């Protein structure tokens, strides 16, 4: 598939895809474009902060509350994890029962002698990949 990028301040900004079939690449591009402009409201004290999905590194459940972490802050979200999964689309991967990570911010993967797989993010955070999610994480990373 060819990519044509035109930088022009006078045109209506859009992404058009021409494809013979609706492939996973097409769906990934669509999800990426849709999620690019999506924001989720984050709550910090009395402040409500619109968080662009791409700025969120990790979304996790702690003491039955959902939080989003960015490069240096943590916000409370008033949405359920499954609702965020639907909004965020392909950009997030569910790594365990209580956490999603943004694919764009994954720094590396690691394993321990305890057998646990972990994912390290570029903001320094780390979380475990559950055994149940390992296969799904591999698929989402494009490994068959």
């Amino acid at each position: 598939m060819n990519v044509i990028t035109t930088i022009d301040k006078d045109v209506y900004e859009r992404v058009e895809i021409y494809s013979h079939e609706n492939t996973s690449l097409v769906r990934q591009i669509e999800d990426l474009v849709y999620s690019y402009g999506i924001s989720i409201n984050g709550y910090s004290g009395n402040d409500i902060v619109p968080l662009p999905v791409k700025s969120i590194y990790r979304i996790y459940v702690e003491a039955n509350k959902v939080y989003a972490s960015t490069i240096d802050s943590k916000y409370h979200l008033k949405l359920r994890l499954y609702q965020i999964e639907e909004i965020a689309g392909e950009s997030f991967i569910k790594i365990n029962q209580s956490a999603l990570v943004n694919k764009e911010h994954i720094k590396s993967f690691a394993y321990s002698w305890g057998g646990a797989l972990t994912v390290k993010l570029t903001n320094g955070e780390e979380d475990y990949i559950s055994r149940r999610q390992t296969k799904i994480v591999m698929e989402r990373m494009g490994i068959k």
Partner: protein
Amino acid sequence: MNDYVKQFLLRGLTFAGFGPIIAGFIYWMIDLSSADFSLAGWQVFIAIISTYILAFVQAGSSVFHQVEHWSPLKAALLHLTCIYFAYSGTYLMNSWIPFKWEVILIFTALFIATYGVIWLIIVLISKSVTKKLNNKLIKDN
């Protein structure tokens, strides 16, 4: 009741009945291959009860590997401990191994070694998965 405890009981009760069936099958095979094989009533009773408990624990404890907040090592150690006591208790009660400390020691060593090999395989799989994921990450970036 905790969901995992419920799962333990549910799995245990679902598969517990297979213990006496397998024990019965083994005794039948022994009977076919040995002319003077016989069991007293109390021995049959102990075999049924102990193998029922063994199958219950074996099936129920499989839930340990699904407790997400436990590390795989913790889950494996608790699983190992559980099934070790279930197996060794059943073997000793039915006189499948004699009540001698040397024999129990060998049995324990073999049990742990087998589990250790399985554990090593799990770690090697984790290592391989990590390598694949990191290579993909490097390739995509």
